């Protein structure tokens, strides 16, 4: 019998089911998988940022103990192995397609970034493979390299690809240029602001791993991989790289230890081990080392932008103009082109009723690791630019920064709201999240705290950011028209077993999000099955029919909606069975949380009665209804979802050392309906931690020759527990109007809303020094430089 405690449904802060195995070290990660007869692969990577490969001599390496095979780019090319494909095509202003240079899995004739794989060694042990990799002789002729985003476009810059003159990938725009110019001509004031959005290394706790397996009897390939979207990998790798039909290729992404975007993409190593497994007729395992992941996992951000905001006399925004250069790295990663365009420039209206916007984005190739989506993907870049600009503009217009925001907010009665940059926000209440956040953060009492800090020799500042983002990606037809080479629906299967327990198959993938709990709560709420009897299955193309995976905070809004639709089908079928069993008409059957009832009577059947009847169809309308109780739904969203809210940060600066401490952080987010408040809180806190990391600590720094200087944790500053305050998280809900659950998404809001709140606080702390802007990350050295320059000027 199914008895449901109401506390397991929507709104319950249920402890995460998956944590029992994670906290006890029982997770099953890709590196925990070892196939019988497995060999080990090691990648030989380029030490040069840019060089021609004149000769690769593998003879000595091949003769070393344990070596099974060594392959290079030409070996793969000889078998017509394709390049690593890009999943999104952007068009230039003139309508021509972007430059899309070939990205060979193993370098062909040329290397284009430090870490570019040149050869793979397959040996009985990893150590033997490493020994042999060191014995491979590669003759390189180093070429001049370019790593800087702006430098790549400079005349005379070293050229990466023949098909991309000037290193330009695309020159794209959105919005109405003429209207923008007209608005600016009318403006009482135009505020100009320039900034760089720092490049980040995602650094998921679990490094990437890929195991290729080939069954020479069936001809089936299996790839075990650390992926956020195994079906996408199967599609891209099978169809474009290795030419293996989907029916012969299984991709398994088991427990995955963090992705943050970096495990969305189809990486060369996945194709290499899968192909190599077929060649050596043994499983081939590759485990990335941390230092390797710094130079081979897709990086994030890396924009250089100029923004101009036109205001009228009353401080109302008349228009916005943005020019952005985005670094793509050396090759196009899977979704790279859409990040600085459709996930960035479309968000430049923010929470404001800006009437006209014109944005131009140029994407460039550089001799650096490819750049792609990283937690927030484009929206953090847009939010940072806009929310810093709002502070700068408020200061220059002499308007209080909160009042300035309020004056320009989209009002609650304006929803659905059409922005000038394509998106239509369905719901939100920016005044409500602002007011709640100001209240919780004690905004009004700040000046007293600042004075108290000053007495202790500290500079205290407060910063605010009000933001909206677009997630739950996305309507397939819309993204298709914008250049996506895939649909972005999701798949859910609800399998009610004979005795009433439920298995859910979902195309979404959990790698820290707590899906096994949240999704089970959806089933508990709707079907009345206890979460203990609901199993969530994901991450295996052999089990789940299809799926587009997890990124862009889409799992609940899209994947959860697919489950909801499938549950509707279960209920509809269940009603027909119940009608038969209770000899009533289908129209008279009501269903609520596990119980079918003949309306107005006390005649009921439980879901288990129905499932049993469906699988043991003795007394069953077999002529009209098929046995079994399993339904599949594909859900294609009608729109993006638009979480938003307000973040307020307080910092204290030690002027003697330049160290910035975050002393308070308050987030009030509207993520739509909240299924599990504890998980939402955790997601927001994790996102804020990454946002604070970007604002104060993290930077991937290349020298001009293309060497990654911050290439290990000795030099790349990850946020630690001690760097983070207790992040206060609250939610204020307006429901999403177009999905059945009313949910919006909470995975990225923390990383999107927080960086400008932190930086606005840093600038505020330095307000007595006349500082207009500080670039991220606000490291101690940088802040001390500002303080010191001020002291010298005062002397």
């Amino acid at each position, binding site marked *: 019998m199914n008895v449901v405690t109401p506390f397991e449904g929507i709104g319950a802060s249920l402890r995460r089911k998956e944590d029992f195995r994670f906290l006890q070290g029982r997770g099953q990660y890709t590196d925990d998988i070892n196939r019988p007869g497995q060999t080990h692969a090691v990648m030989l990577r380029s030490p040069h940022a840019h060089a021609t490969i004149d000769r690769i001599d593998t003879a000595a390496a091949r003769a070393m103990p344990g070596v099974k095979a060594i392959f290079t780019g030409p070996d793969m090319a000889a078998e017509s192995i394709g390049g690593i494909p890009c999943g999104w095509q952007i068009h230039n202003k003139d309508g021509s397609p972007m430059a899309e240079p070939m990205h060979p899995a193993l370098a062909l004739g040329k290397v284009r970034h430090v870490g570019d794989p040149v050869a793979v060694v397959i040996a009985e042990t990893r150590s033997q493979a490493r020994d042999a990799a060191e014995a491979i002789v590669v003759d390189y002729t180093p070429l001049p390299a370019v790593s800087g985003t702006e430098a790549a476009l400079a005349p005379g810059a070293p050229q990466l690809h023949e098909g991309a003159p000037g290193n330009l990938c695309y020159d794209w725009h959105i919005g109405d240029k003429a209207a923008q110019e007209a608005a600016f001509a009318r403006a009482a004031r135009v505020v100009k602001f320039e900034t760089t959005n720092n490049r980040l290394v995602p650094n998921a706790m679990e490094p990437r791993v890929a195991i290729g397996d080939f069954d020479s009897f069936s001809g089936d390939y299996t790839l075990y991989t650390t992926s956020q979207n195994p079906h996408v990998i199967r599609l891209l790798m099978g169809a474009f790289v290795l030419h293996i039909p989907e029916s012969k290729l299984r991709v398994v992404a088991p427990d995955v230890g963090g992705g943050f975007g970096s495990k969305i993409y189809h990486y060369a190593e996945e194709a290499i081990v899968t192909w190599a497994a077929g060649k050596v007729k043994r499983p081939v395992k590759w485990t990335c080392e941390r*230092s390797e992941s710094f130079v081979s996992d897709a990086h994030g951000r890396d924009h250089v932008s100029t923004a101009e905001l036109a205001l009228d006399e009353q401080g109302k925004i008349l228009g916005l103009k943005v020019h952005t250069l985005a670094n793509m790295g050396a090759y196009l990663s899977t979704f790279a082109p859409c990040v600085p365009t459709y996930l960035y420039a479309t968000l430049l209206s923010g929470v404001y009723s800006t009437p006209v916007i014109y944005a131009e984005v140029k994407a460039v190739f550089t001799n650096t690791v490819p750049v792609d989506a990283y937690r927030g993907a484009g929206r953090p870049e847009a939010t940072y630019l806009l929310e810093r600009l709002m502070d700068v503009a408020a200061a220059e217009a002499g308007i209080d920064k909160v009042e300035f925001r309020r004056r320009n907010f989209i009002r609650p009665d304006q929803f659905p709201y059409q922005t000038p940059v394509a998106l239509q926000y369905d719901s939100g209440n920016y005044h409500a999240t602002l007011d709640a956040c100001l209240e919780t953060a004690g905004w009004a009492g700040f000046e007293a705290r600042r004075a108290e800090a000053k007495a202790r020799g500290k500079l205290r500042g407060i910063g605010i950011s009000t933001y909206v983002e677009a997630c739950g990606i996305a309507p397939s037809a819309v993204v298709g028209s914008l250049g996506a080479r895939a649909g972005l629906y999701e798949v859910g299967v609800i399998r009610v077993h004979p005795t009433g327990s439920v298995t859910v198959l979902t195309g979404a993938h959990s790698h820290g999000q707590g899906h096994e709990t949240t999704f089970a709560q959806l089933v508990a709420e709707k079907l009345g099955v206890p979460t203990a009897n609901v199993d969530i299955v994901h991450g295996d193309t052999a089990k789940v029919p299809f799926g587009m995976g997890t990124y862009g905070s889409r799992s609940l809004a899209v994947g959860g909606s697919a489950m909801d639709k499938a549950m509707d089908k279960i209920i509809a079928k269940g009603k027909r069975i119940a009608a038969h069993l209770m000899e009533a008409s289908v129209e008279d059957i009501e269903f609520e949380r596990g119980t079918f009832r003949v309306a107005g009577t006390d005649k009921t059947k439980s879901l288990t009665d129905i499932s049993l009847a469906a699988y043991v169809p003795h007394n069953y309308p077999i002529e009209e209804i098929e046995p079994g109780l399993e339904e599949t739904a594909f859900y294609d969203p009608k729109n993006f979802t638009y979480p938003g809210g307000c973040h307020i940060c307080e910092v204290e600066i030690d002027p003697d050392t330049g*160290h910035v401490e975050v002393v308070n952080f308050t987030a009030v987010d509207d993520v739509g309906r909240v299924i599990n408040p504890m998980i939402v809180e955790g997601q927001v806190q994790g996102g804020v931690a990454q946002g604070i990391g970007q604002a104060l600590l993290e930077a991937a720094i290349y020298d001009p020759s293309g060497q990654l*200087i*911050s290439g290990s944790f*000795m030099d790349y500053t990850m946020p630690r527990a001690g760097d983070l305050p207790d992040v206060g998280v609250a939610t204020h809900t307006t429901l999403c109007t177009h999905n059945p659950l009313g949910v919006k998404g909470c995975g990225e809001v923390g990383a999107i809303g927080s960086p400008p709140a932190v930086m606005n606080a840093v600038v505020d702390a330095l307000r007595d020094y006349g500082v207009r802007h500080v670039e991220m990350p606000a490291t101690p050295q940088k802040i001390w*430089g500002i303080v010191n320059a001020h002291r010298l000027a005062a002397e």
Partner: protein
Amino acid sequence: MYDFAYHKPASVADAVKILAADPDARPISGGMTLLPALKLRLNKPTAVVDLSGIAELRGVKRDGDSLVIGALTRHYEVATSAEVKASIPTLAAMAATIGDTQVRNRGTIGGSVANNDPSADYPAALLALGATIQTDKRKLAAEDFFTGMFTTALDVGELVTAIHIPIPKKAGYAKMRNPASRYSMAGVFVAQTASGVRVAVNGAGANGVFREKAMEAALAANWSADAVAGVKVDAGLLNGDIHGSAEYRAHLVTVMAKRAVVDAG
């Protein structure tokens, strides 16, 4: 890692014998520095001589006016030793800031001293405290022992066996951590010793740990934070990296010196 032979002797004499027979063998104590180097294949010893089985190398004891700390004593043991806390509380507090819990439970004072990382904590402490480093064959004053970045006066195969630290009247320490590695980016250890005021700086020197004589003179004349506040360090003698230029480090040395004096009381 490359392959190597592994030895686990039970006495210093046996360890020294193995090391003497093979100049490419390396001792290993906590392994917190050597193991990562081996894993990254930066080091290719023929043999590793594990000192962890040598009981005579462990422990803290008081010997007259000195503390004697065995080379194999872990950072955690120094941080929590009642003897160290009573006689040189700053040294215990400093040991508690080395790396993280895992590192403190493995890393040893002997390994740290032998490695002489310019950003490590112990070298500055021992230099400021006027410590003596005892090896299997001799005793060396700290200034003679620490000869430069990652270099010491140790001969190949020579082992640090113990550290003798004269108990100071007062001592204090302050450091600014490198934001990424959390090692010291500029650390200053100050001490009032029987042989006068001594100030040593880690993390900043272009040639490793060094004594800051101008600060010593200023503090000898007037033991106060204000006394060192006026002493500017020559940036030309310091190193710079992405986290801190030589100028920034020079400034930090003064700031940390002030804080170290306050810490000493």
